[in-house]
């Protein structure tokens, strides 16, 4: 494994020591907090606050509201900083932290499920639920990236995929329980306001305990900086120590999520800034990162409080996440990523098919079969039935548009996924990861809040604009690194994180226009009009048509840039064209089935798995496979809980999720 920490490559430094900024920021946070405290209560009364808080509301608001809020900001920030450092050390991954690993999203989903399904259980152990969710996600992410030796980029991609699945499930849960919308949303935004000292005290002893344990593990931690074989030589149970430290970090992160919701990217920012400030040794990093984490969150929160007033509801966690995307992008050039050959990283094949044509025909037949089932079989108030000719006449206008749009979206996303996986040589690459879908989401958000009435057409236009802006931004960033595959993926994740933060900040407003956003996020295609369906089919045909011509590029690029260049391939230009195409396919596909469907990930895998190993044939098979998957998904979504309908994108990710787990945890032998 070859990776280095960001600061080591930041060679030359300005003459003024960079760490000087931190005491200044600390002073600023202190001043802001004192100002807020002063506003709430004159200094002469400060000493008597605890006594008066029991019966006097103004004092209670300060003593049980404002003061514990500062404490929670500081403690949660420190806990996330520590969790970030520990995760980064154990996984030897400078961009690991609770939100990039999906741990926070997992904890949040577990809590949402708890609120809806078993409020009684939650009353007993809110934190236990969060920790269980976080551990499950962590295990899943590790399992997903195990085959690539926990390579940093793969780990983060797995984390963002798992976050996506968690997000899809959360969105469906919220849709199905409209009355709790506000609760789930506010809390998703990471709101820090407090009503008692309990959460602060809870976080304090956890942080103290974890900090103590971390210092005890300092020696083993330092050893982990060495490679596994040498550490073993020193008589250390490497795996056990790693696991122990990881558990510690996950527990801390889950506690923070249980207490205040998702606070994005503090765990990424704190250690990165600590290294920049000169904390190079493990010992220094261990105290510097929590310190800076505390300072970052405290400063952000008191700034927001000062600007918006203490009455406003502020999704502090969503605001910190806004900085996360740019931070990731800034760290990109400092991430050591090699343009090494990645062929081993392509999805596995069970062997190369001897009869590709026969298999293609089979796939076409499967598509026709599922399409016919989708058009003819359904439920009505009397139960299941197969529509006869007359009934079909009445039903077709409702069934074909959603079927066609789903199939077109599946085909487009599958093509985009094949391109992404070939381009990056990473089997976890998928259009969902490129961040284009999230960009479309920001566009939809804008159309909902800027226009008096959002029509389907205006939403389409805004979504396309959002996708295009996200794409252009990502391209601009990636261009600076010559479109290296890993950089590109990370740029996508960063863009996605940034757009996602905007969406959750808006969602946290609790405004009920967010329902439309939720419907899109969960991938609801039930209201597609014949016109829209025709349009997506036309766009799909237009974008898919040139793909067979790109077979050679897709065949050569996974061999790595040098090899591809040696074969006379214009590497940068071919990558640019492919990226552009993949982004357009993604944007068009996401418009109908939402950003979370996972079809773009799963379809190329299945195509390879059944024996399509050559680029061109894999592309064709993947497109068919994506179409088949979405035809099936659309039918299931329409019929399973009739008359209620499951959003298709969600059904697709519920099919794709288990597949992912199966695929990535099974033995290497296949």
């Amino acid at each position: 494994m070859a990776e280095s920490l960001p600061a080591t490559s930041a060679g030359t430094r300005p003459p003024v020591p960079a760490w000087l900024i931190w005491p200044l920021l600390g002073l600023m946070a202190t001043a802001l907090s004192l100002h807020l405290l002063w506003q709430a209560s004159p200094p002469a009364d400060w000493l008597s606050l605890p006594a008066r808080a029991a019966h006097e509301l103004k004092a209670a608001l300060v003593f049980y509201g404002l003061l514990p809020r500062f404490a929670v900001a500081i403690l949660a920030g420190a806990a996330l900083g520590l969790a970030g450092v520990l995760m980064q050390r154990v996984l030897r991954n400078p961009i690991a932290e609770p939100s990039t690993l999906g741990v926070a999203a997992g904890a949040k989903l577990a809590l949402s499920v708890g609120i809806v399904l078993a409020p009684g259980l939650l009353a007993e152990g809110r934190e236990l639920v969060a920790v269980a969710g976080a551990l499950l996600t962590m295990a899943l992410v590790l399992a997903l990236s195990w085959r690539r030796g926990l390579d940093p980029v793969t780990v983060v991609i797995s984390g963002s995929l798992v976050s996506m699945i968690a997000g899809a499930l959360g969105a469906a849960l919220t849709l199905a329980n409209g009355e709790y919308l506000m609760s789930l949303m506010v809390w998703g935004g990471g709101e820090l306001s407090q009503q008692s000292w309990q959460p602060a005290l809870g976080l304090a002893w956890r942080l103290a305990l974890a900090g103590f344990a971390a210092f005890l593990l300092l020696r083993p931690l330092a050893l982990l900086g060495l490679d596994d074989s040498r550490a073993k030589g020193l008589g250390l149970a490497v795996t056990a120590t790693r696991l122990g430290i990881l558990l510690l970090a996950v527990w801390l992160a889950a506690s923070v999520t249980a207490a205040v919701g998702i606070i994005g990217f503090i765990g990424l920012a704190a250690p990165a800034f600590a290294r920049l400030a000169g904390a190079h040794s493990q010992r220094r990093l261990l105290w510097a990162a929590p310190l800076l984490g505390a300072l970052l969150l405290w400063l952000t929160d008191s700034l927001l409080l000062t600007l918006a007033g203490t009455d406003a509801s502020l999704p502090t966690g969503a605001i910190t996440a806004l900085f996360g995307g740019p931070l990731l992008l800034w760290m990109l050039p400092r991430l050591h990523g090699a343009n090494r050959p990645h062929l081993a990283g392509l999805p596995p094949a069970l062997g190369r098919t001897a009869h590709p044509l026969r298999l293609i025909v089979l796939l076409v037949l499967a598509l026709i079969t599922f399409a016919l089932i989708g058009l003819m079989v359904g439920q009505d108030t009397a139960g299941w039935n197969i529509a006869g000719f007359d009934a079909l006449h009445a039903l077709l206008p409702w069934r074909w548009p959603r079927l066609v749009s789903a199939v077109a979206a599946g085909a487009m996303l599958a093509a985009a996924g094949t391109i992404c996986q070939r381009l990056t040589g990473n089997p976890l690459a998928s259009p969902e990861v490129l961040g284009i879908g999230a960009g479309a989401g920001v566009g939809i958000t804008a159309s909902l809040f800027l226009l008096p009435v959002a029509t389907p057409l205006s939403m389409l236009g805004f979504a396309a604009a959002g996708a295009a802006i996200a794409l252009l931004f990502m391209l601009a960033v990636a261009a600076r690194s010559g479109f290296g595959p890993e950089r590109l993926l990370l740029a996508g994740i960063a863009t996605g994180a940034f757009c996602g933060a905007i969406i959750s900040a808006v969602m946290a407003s609790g405004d009920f226009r967010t329902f439309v956003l939720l419907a899109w996020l969960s991938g609801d295609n039930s209201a597609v009009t014949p016109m829209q369906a025709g349009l997506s089919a036309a766009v799909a045909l237009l974008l898919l048509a040139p793909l067979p011509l790109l077979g050679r590029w897709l065949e050569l690029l996974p061999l790595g840039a040098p090899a591809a260049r040696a074969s006379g391939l214009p590497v940068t230009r071919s990558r640019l064209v492919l990226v552009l195409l993949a982004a357009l396919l993604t944007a068009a596909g996401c418009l109908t089935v939402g950003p979370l469907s996972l079809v773009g990930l799963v379809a190329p895998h299945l195509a390879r798995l059944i024996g399509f190993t050559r680029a061109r044939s894999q592309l064709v098979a993947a497109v068919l496979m994506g179409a088949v998957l979405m035809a099936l998904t659309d039918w299931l979504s329409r019929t399973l809980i009739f008359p209620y309908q499951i959003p298709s994108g969600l059904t697709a990710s519920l099919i794709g999720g288990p597949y992912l787990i199966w695929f990535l945890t099974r033995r290497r032998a296949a």
Partner: protein
Amino acid sequence: MAAGAGALLASGFTPARAALPARLAAIDWSMLETALALNVPLVAATELKLYRRVVAEPAVPAAVADLGLRGSPNLELLASLAPDLILISPFYERYRPQLERIAAVQSFTVYTPGAPAYENGEAVMRALGDQIGMEREAADYIAATAAEIAAGRNALAGSAAASRPLFAISIGDARHVRIFGSDSNFGAVLERFGLTNAWTGRTRYSAFAPVPIEALAQVPEARLVIIPPVPPDVTRILAGSRVWQTLPAVREGRVHWLEPVDHFGALPAARRFARLLTASLLSAEAHFG
């Protein structure tokens, strides 16, 4: 009915079928309430499982078909039921092209920023009455609601309950509430009762949402009227909140938990709220002397 048909033509609405009264379907809940209040024969409406639990009134007859989630109404089922007129609100505009393939679609607006929901609810009921030839029923219901509110006002007049300002709130989670402002249904009822709405801050779609619960401390003498539904674990968490415990209204027992009322309902929701609030305030009156 003849007069109704005349008004119908006058209003420019041409029914798909000649028979009256029209077969209605409601996608929007405030329109569902409005139609049910007029005793219009409804063929279908959305999310009835949840409606029966959290809106309750007016009750939905068993014969009304459930179209599924408001966010994803089952168009195929709706089409098979062949309604004449589909009632939506601007929030469901994105379904309009599809719905128009089934029947005439009419959008009614109860909730627009800054406009009073109560008056909008009345206007919407009148408009629907005009459209389907039930002007008299609409006028009757509007008058009956006004009369019921006036009766409530008389009952409350001079009672201790009426002497304090009120916060009408819904609880989002342990730390956040929605406070219903002057332009909400609930705010309108408070005003017609001659009560003071303790929340004078800005509103957004009839509720400034969400605000931290300490905002309730701005008017320490106020009563709290909690309008469910609330999240299931909120009561437990409120019990552990020191700020909640210190709120004067909580400390001094001025918290009124009502039965659920549609937070974004139409005139029937206002009427239900008026009845529930009167009963709660008067029973508290009896309770505390």
